[in-house]
């Protein structure tokens, strides 16, 4: 440590020297906001919050933190969910939610380059104007940073080929304070938006140099570097689309037909929701949720057929015929609307094409005001087994199974499925909250025991998961030690 820290005042003064005194917070309610996330119970208070507006400020803060031996926690979304940006050891929260520049959109090569504070709504507005669309997760929170979402590996609605890996190139501030460019951005050390003027690159190579950073960074919760700019894949907006529904009384019945649809590459966006989650998304008013839920199929596959610029009617025709063929094979009835929700197709098409913007509570919280979630990856054929485990944990904790939301999202043409269960509760009722957290904990332990793959590791899952993975956590720690010898970036978050 080059310089021993004397007082908090010293440090906040130095931080103010970097970002301006108006953007530094050391006390008061604002620090409370950075001490917790909406979807978890973990709390941890930062000493200082610095709201940055530029890459240079991020770099200067990381350098200062190294000089002073103070932890740094990066944060890009205004609203956090799982505790990734809640400090474990105090220190400085670098709030990048104000870095909102969309630096470049390249429709020809299908990518967009932007800063950490850009939300899906802001990006989608720009892309819409160019006939393009972001690769969206399911109705993300309006505050959600696109970069955070990519780094957290939230599942995308489109399960095609390699679209689960959307990151192309990045600019990082390394834990020791240097700027570092990944992939083909590495050929120039100019700021990201100037790289193409300085070098012959279109920022399309995501690999290297030295490591495959586009893979190592996601899931690290900011422990290996802070991303200050990223370009990600985008897609051409369809010219025609049609939503198809398949309803099922139980999840097991959906398995074979869904494998068939995915292996035949029928449609683009594709997901399954239970009646609870579907009602939360579709209800026009919170008061409609129960009524709507009661009328919906217990489980619904939602499949969006799309066509682009070339012969769209002909493409839709062969896709619809393929859907009919699948329906015949599995004796299913494809629907263009849902019982008690005749406008479901139009409403869902809108929901699937943008972040949640209903103006009221976030959709997962509409039921009772808050929720706790359990999510993991599995093979589809094992999903019914894991559903039983979730239901068993809910029953064991006295949680009403009818209030449990369920979402399955295929990835890589159905090679894997993201499976999420949501347990809503009233945040004003401590008993309800305790019950939701109990079922979350019970379900997590039971699922891990049975082989559910918790690919994203937050809070209490850290020990639960890494305790079973042999040398994995130790190896991750050795990498951390090499990249971050002073243990500055988000210490403790990966369990070290």
């Amino acid at each position, binding site marked *: 440590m080059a310089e021993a820290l004397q007082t908090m005042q010293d440090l906040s003064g130095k931080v103010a020297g970097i970002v301006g005194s108006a953007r530094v917070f050391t006390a008061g309610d604002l620090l409370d906001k950075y001490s917790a996330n909406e979807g978890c119970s973990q709390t941890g208070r930062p000493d200082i919050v610095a709201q940055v507006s530029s890459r240079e400020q991020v770099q200067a803060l990381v350098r200062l933190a190294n000089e002073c031996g103070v932890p740094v926690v990066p944060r890009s979304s205004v609203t956090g969910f799982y505790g990734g940006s809640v400090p474990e050891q105090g220190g400085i929260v670098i709030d990048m939610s104000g870095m909102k520049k969309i630096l470049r959109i390249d429709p020809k090569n299908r*990518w967009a380059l932007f800063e950490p504070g850009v939300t899906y709504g802001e990006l989608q507005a720009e892309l819409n104007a160019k006939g393009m669309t972001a690769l969206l997760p399911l109705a993300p929170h309006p505050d959600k940073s696109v970069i955070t979402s990519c780094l957290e590996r939230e599942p995308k609605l489109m399960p095609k*080929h*390699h679209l689960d890996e959307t990151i192309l190139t990045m600019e990082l501030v*390394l834990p020791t304070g*240097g700027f570092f*460019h990944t992939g083909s951005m*590495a050929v*120039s*050390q100019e700021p990201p938006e100037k790289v193409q003027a300085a*070098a*012959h*690159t*279109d920022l*399309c*190579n995501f*690999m*290297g*140099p*030295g*490591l*495959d950073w*586009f*893979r*190592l960074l996601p899931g*690290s919760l900011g422990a290996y570097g802070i991303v200050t700019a990223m370009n990600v*894949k985008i897609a051409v907006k369809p010219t025609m689309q049609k939503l198809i529904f398949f309803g099922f009384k139980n999840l097991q019945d959906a398995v074979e037909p869904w494998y068939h649809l995915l*292996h*035949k*590459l*029928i449609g683009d966006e594709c997901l399954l929701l239970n009646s609870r989650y579907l009602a939360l998304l579709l209800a026009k008013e919170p008061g409609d949720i129960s009524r709507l839920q009661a009328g919906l199929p217990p489980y619904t596959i939602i499949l969006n057929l799309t066509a682009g610029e*070339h*012969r769209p009617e*002909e*493409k839709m025709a*062969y896709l619809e015929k*393929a859907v009919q063929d699948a329906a015949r094979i599995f004796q299913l009835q494809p629907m263009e609307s849902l019982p008690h929700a005749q406008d479901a197709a139009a409403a869902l098409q809108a929901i699937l094409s943008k972040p949640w913007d209903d103006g009221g509570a976030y959709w997962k919280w509409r039921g009772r005001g808050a929720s706790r979630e359990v999510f993991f*990856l599995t*093979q*589809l054929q094992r999903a019914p087994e894991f559903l039983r485990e979730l239901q068993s944990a809910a029953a064991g904790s006295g949680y009403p199974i009818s209030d449990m939301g369920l979402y399955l999202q295929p990835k*890589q*043409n159905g*090679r*894997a499925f993201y499976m999420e269960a949501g347990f809503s509760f009233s945040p004003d009722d401590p008993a309800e909250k305790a019950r939701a957290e109990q079922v979350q904990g019970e379900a997590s332990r039971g699922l891990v*025991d049975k*082989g559910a*793959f*918790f*690919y*994203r590791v937050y809070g209490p899952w850290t020990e639960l998961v*890494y305790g*079973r*993975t*042999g*040398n*994995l*956590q130790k*190896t*991750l720690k050795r990498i951390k*030690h*090499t990249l971050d010898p002073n243990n500055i970036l988000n210490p403790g978050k990966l369990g070290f």
Partner: protein
Amino acid sequence: MAFTEMAYKALQDIVGSENVSNDPAICQAYSRVQWLPSGVLQRERCGLAMRPACVVMPGSTQEVQRILQVANRYTFPFVPRGSGFTFSAFPTLAGTIVIDPKRMDRIIELNEKDMYAVIEPYVSFVGLQAEAMKCGLYTPTPLAGSQVSCLANYSWHGAYGNSWITGIGAQNLLGFELVLPDGEVVRSGSMACPGAGSFWNDGPGPDLRGFLRSGMFGHAGGMGVVTKISCKLWPYAGPAEFPAEGTANMKFSSSLGENWKWYMIKFPLKYPEQEEQELRKSAELFYEMGRAEIGEVATHLAQQFLYTYSSVTKQDLFDNMKNDVFPSGFCVVALQGKTSPDQLAYEDRVLHDIVKKVGGIFVKEDEPAYQVWIKRAANEWIRFGNAQRLSRASDCFSIGSSNVDSIDQIVYEILESNKVGRDLLKNEGLGKDFVQPLSMNGGWISPQEYGYWCLHTTDVFPEQAVDQCNQAIEIIGKVTKSQFERRSAAAAIHMIGPAYDLFGPMMGDVHLIVKGLKREFDPGNLSNPGYATRPDVVTPEELAKMMGH
């Protein structure tokens, strides 16, 4: 400490004396790669000195682990090997042992529903492909040839002729099991969690594939021994048993059934005078196909690739050249009806629209190019990859330049690096004795993931002669130098061996990061020393020597 008799006995104890050998005749076979100019020069420079101290064949991860523990005890270097196709599979220091995984050749799992396989290091593409096709699945096939190790290919980067949708090998790697240089075993992806299965790639937490691999080369055995991987398989609508006619070298497949359709596309331009326009038109075609998301294969092949890949004998190669079978480069496209025959019919109509829009012409069935390529060679891209045939022209070849970026940047780089090559030929006579006109023109454009990105190679064809191979190395060096001077995206893909020390300072000091990891995980520099980098920072004097000053 060098490799000793005690170490040899310890290895015998681990794998059994029948699975370890220091017989000079056997070790000689593991001494160098023959088809690359660098291998030819190594033979000249080192003679027999690079023969490994012994070859050991473990049968399990536990045996690999124990071998590495012995290597650490007696401090001798080891080279992990797949099928031994490329330069990093051969020793660079005396006293090195080679770990040959021939006994680890099991397809442990082939999951039809979830489209993945779990394999050991000596499973070849041809073995995996044959089993996958029986289940309606397939894997892209490496140009390196279907005899190569899938595991090694995926851990390296793996370039394929049919990767328009599937991407390269690195993208098809799911989980892995790695014995680190110090003998510790680590698993990544869902394979790391007991009972979870091997279907998924990233997590828990950070994706350790980012540590195992880097850029276009991976660590090339410099970070331990990969003993197991899971890999992606893709929907396949062709026949369950690959159709083949003829025997031996003349074996070919004229049809993959009604769900596959091949096309060759050319442009009405004069070649090579209008090569730039031809490449730009090809790029336009691929961009349009990408936006439309049609096709299973989409690639552009320059003359040298068409001639060499399609030749079944050396005589055949030169006959085809003499008859001008491929008067220019061509785009090669395949459609696959995975959804239904209607999908194929739809994509056929869209392809015709696009080809018309970009001013292309479909090569007719009665044209020699179609007869030679589509009827004889195209389907072999699905079965065995063809690239061994690259060495048919001169028994030796090397990539002259390569790049990874957008399709447009690939075209730029092919034109620029060929210009450097042609200038060297004209002004310094470099490459004048290579097989021409196969060297110095055109390139292979290989767009990936519906054109989100692209890679290319140009190749040179020296004979296995020291003088010619020295010229090839000089050409490659000067092309690479020009890439850095031009600030080409290609500069970012060269990170392996001394390139770290040479170019790392230009790229955020990445060499210091990688050397730091090497020191952390392999402080004794035992795991394939030289690949990907050595642990210490090279002195300015050594650096100057590397650069030829």
